[in-house]
């Protein structure tokens, strides 16, 4: 009986969002109650299943499911510690975002289409996290691209279509590069399951050029989603999407899919040994460092809230890449924990931006003056997110920066510490003015006189509760994961567990 569950659980986790998604497609626009029920059923069943699996994996159980697919490369879904870090993150944030999206899209058109694709996206993300080998990863990676596109162009305006095309141009190109990389590795060494320490060391002497090319292809391809420097251009463009999409997908799922892929590639495909023989990570480190600084400077120059957040994502996601590229256990903890922390903080920021836009039609930074009086709770959540991004303790971001900085020194790359310092300064430079405007600046029009923004009776009614509560929830999580970093249930503890398994001799 136990073995059955261990086979079925990974599939069940993917299906728990896929099936509601497919059912939602068939619903009429007016059946909103049924749609909400389906959505929430999916969300909670997924959370339940993920919780089950988390428990199992922490006990050392193996979860694996496979069907035949390509010669020598089955489709494998498996749950290990690393995949669960990502699965748990996406499931929890899916909960928040689903509620947010229900509130956000209340009364607008195309909701069945939206929620259908939204669920598909989450399924693809989860599948990608649970993928047990490169080919399976590739399958879900491409599916994620496809399922996100309709969400980017959801509004159907000319700007949205243009952004959608840019998005596709980047992600499909990236997908093709990944495909080539996977195929090349398959040709050189087959496609065994992911294994800590990688599986390429036997062929490294024979195929140095091939492995190098494959790494470059894969990193470039994954780099598109992870928004690495020369190929990050889609992310700011994709900000035309509705706020929940920007929040969950562009800040979390899609970019993390890229970063997660790089983690898998480095730790479970190539392995640290092989990579140090091939000497490939120095380049990746420099690229990631350049992205961190570049993204921050670009963020500083944006005048739109969402654009600024988008460039901030460009910068922040590269922390993960940088941490992975350093190839040290402490840096790895930093990278893995930042995967979660950045997600929590960035989703909060995007929720807040959505709240501003939805409640008061505020899109530009200059319109944020005095927002703290009108929407104190959202502004407080925004403050938490922004400070966390800078790395202010005790918010989650500090914990990641702590381990990343220590990792940089441990692996003998002290210059990276200065990259973090510079990025912290730039982060402060582009986030703090927003906080200043929100809390200290005088609003252009008194809120009381504002036509659509009459101050509500209670603080808790500053905006629709379905928009407010997810925002506060994620902000709270960002603080709690930072303060209680040392507890057994924190992302940090789990990251340490992963690293202990990955770096085990």
């Amino acid at each position, binding site marked *: 009986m136990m073995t059955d569950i261990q086979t079925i659980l990974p599939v069940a986790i993917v299906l728990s969002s896929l099936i509601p998604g497919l059912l939602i497609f068939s619903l009429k626009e007016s059946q909103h109650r049924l749609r909400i029920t389906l959505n929430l059923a999916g969300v909670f069943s997924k959370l339940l299943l993920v919780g089950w699996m988390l428990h199992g994996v922490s006990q050392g159980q193996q979860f694996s499911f496979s069907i035949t697919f390509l010669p020598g490369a089955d489709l494998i879904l498996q749950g290990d510690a690393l995949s669960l870090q990502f699965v748990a993150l996406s499931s929890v944030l899916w909960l928040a975002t689903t509620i947010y999206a229900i509130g956000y899209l209340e009364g607008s058109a195309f909701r069945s289409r939206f929620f259908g694709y939204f669920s598909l996206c989450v399924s693809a993300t989860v599948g990608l996290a649970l993928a047990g080998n490169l080919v399976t990863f590739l399958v879900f990676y491409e599916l994620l691209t496809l399922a996100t596109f309709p969400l980017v162009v959801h509004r159907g305006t000319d700007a949205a279509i243009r952004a959608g095309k840019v998005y596709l141009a980047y992600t499909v190109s990236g997908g093709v590069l990944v495909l080539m990389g996977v195929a090349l590795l398959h040709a050189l060494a087959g496609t065994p399951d992911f294994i800590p320490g990688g599986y390429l060391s036997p062929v490294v002497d024979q195929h140095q050029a091939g492995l190098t090319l494959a790494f470059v292809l894969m990193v470039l391809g994954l780099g598109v989603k992870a928004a690495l420097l020369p190929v*990050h*251009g889609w992310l700011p463009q994709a900000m035309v999407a509705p706020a929940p999409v920007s929040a969950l997908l562009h800040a979390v799922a899609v970019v993390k899919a890229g970063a997660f892929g790089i983690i898998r590639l480095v730790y479970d495909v190539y392995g640290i040994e092989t990579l140090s023989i091939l000497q490939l990570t120095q380049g990746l480190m420099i690229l990631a460092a350049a992205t961190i600084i570049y993204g921050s*400077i*670009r963020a500083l*120059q944006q005048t739109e809230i969402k654009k600024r957040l988008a460039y901030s994502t460009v910068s922040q996601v590269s922390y993960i890449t940088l941490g992975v590229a350093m190839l040290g256990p402490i840096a790895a903890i930093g990278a893995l924990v930042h995967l979660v922390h950045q997600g929590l903080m960035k989703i909060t920021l995007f929720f807040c931006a959505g709240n501003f836009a939805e409640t008061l039609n505020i899109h530009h930074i200059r319109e944020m003056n005095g927002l703290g009086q009108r929407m104190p709770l959202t502004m407080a959540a925004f403050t938490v997110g922004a400070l966390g991004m800078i790395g202010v*303790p005790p918010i989650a971001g500090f914990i990641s920066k702590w381990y990343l900085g220590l990792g940089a020194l441990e692996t003998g790359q002290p210059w990276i510490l200065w990259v973090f310092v510079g990025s*912290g300064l730039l982060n402060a430079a582009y986030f703090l003015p927003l906080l200043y405007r929100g809390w200290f600046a005088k609003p252009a029009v008194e809120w009381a006189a504002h036509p659509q923004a009459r101050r509500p009776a209670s603080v808790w009614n500053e905006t629709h509760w379905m928009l407010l509560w997810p925002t506060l929830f994620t902000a709270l999580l960002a603080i709690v994961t930072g303060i209680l970093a040392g507890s057994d249930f924190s992302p940090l503890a789990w990251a340490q567990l992963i690293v202990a398994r990955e770096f085990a001799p």
Partner: protein
Amino acid sequence: MMLDWWHIPLIPLLFWLLMMRWPSVSNWIWLAPLPGLFLLWHGPANIELPMLWPGAALGIDSPVNHYFLLLSIVLWSIASLFASVKQRNDVHRLRFWSFWLWSMTGNLLLVIALDPASFYVGFTLMSLAAYGLVAHQPGPLPRQAGRLYLQLAVLGEMLIYAGLILRVHETGGLLSFSDWQQPIGWLTAVCLLTGFGLKAGFWPLHLWLPLAHPVAPTAASAVLSGAMLKAGILGIWQFIPADTPTTVALGPVVFFIGLFGAFYAVVAGLLQQQAKTVLAFSSVSQMGYLLMIIAMFWMTGDATSSLIILLAMYGLHHAVAKAALFMGAGLASSRRLSPWHWGLMTLPALALAGLPLTTGASVKYLFKDAVSDSMFALSLPLLSIGSMATALLLIRALLLMKQSQQNISKNAGAPEAVALSSWLVLSLAPIVIPLMVDEFRHQLTQTMQLQALTGLLWPIILATVIAAIVSRLSLKTSFKAKLFAGRWLSLRLRYCLIHFPVPEWVIRLKLDGWRKVERSINKFSSVGTLPITIGLTFLMMLSWTMLF
């Protein structure tokens, strides 16, 4: 329920939550830091909190943080009382109190932190929340002062972060101050010194201080100058180990930076036109003395050294006296003061200048003692001149306060009772503390010898004389350029960052010109499908036959 160390930073937060629900709680915020006193009394065991960030441990392990906790509690409590009156009619008082409480939380946490991460948590919280206090009042000046404060605070944060990480790495991952005796690297030391120095505000890292103090609400200036500057000093003390090759080498440099700063700030301060600015420069000058104490300690590194006590005492002494002066300046600029008020006002000023029977006398005496024991004995005469300079600066401050009385309206009443009494407590503290605290009392008896007395008194008398002469001459100078330098730099920095030229990396295909060519090709091939295709077939055949 027993109080424990970890309750200390939580109680202000509890107050904050209560205040968000019932705004009138803000009248009782002065109670928030007081439980700490109970802990100081009882001194429960230090605790470790493995649930929190790496290495978290709280408690008291030396006289320095013992006294610093005391001074923080006293200052925050009294300043809260003072502010509860002053901010009563403020529109944004909830915002003020929020930042106040957050900053208090941070300050209390950092003082009882026994590990670098907790210290950093508290320090950052305090530093950033204090921005809300500096920039609280409307208008361009607070905004500019706030911007500069924040820029330097963030720069300091990042330098501390770098230094912290470097230090943790150097010590091999140890996370407790008591284990941090390994040699420190140059880079680490400079990062930490600069990072904390930006908060401690000694020369040349004082840029924000003279801008921020005059524009902040009075109570905020009092805690800024009294408690938060000390946090910077405490940071340097805790993070940088004494008696390592680096610190021994760095000691003289730092000593002379402190010494120079102590004089420089007096000169700069004498040229100012505003009482609070002058007081701010006095703080810069006093921080120079604290820095000298640390530098001397670095050279010896003796765990039983009197320098440790001296640092603790000097911190307490300066904190209460300077806070009293700031509050006095605040009162003087808004309320009509009677002569006995003025008498009370001179007390902390004289204490700072080292008047016998006050805390100032004790610390000055000990300080001279320490210097004459150290390798810097030659600079001893300078210290007396320093005392005189301090006295001169404070006289200048008092005169400016007196002047500001002329600007206030006739119908401004006497100070409010609560504000007055809180100020009274602080002003009297320089005399009361020596009666209550053993260390001070011990020194006090020694200062009562004749030689010591004259040594302490002549600078004050000389300063009074000079002041009298100069005020007759009524020298009018303006030295504002210096103040604007910081402001200008901060604006310039902002401009440069926003206009930093970075490429956009967007690839655009320009196909409009190509379109025409394409059309003609399409037209040609659709009209001539038959001949082209047949021609191509032959061509292919021909070329293949030739090629093979």
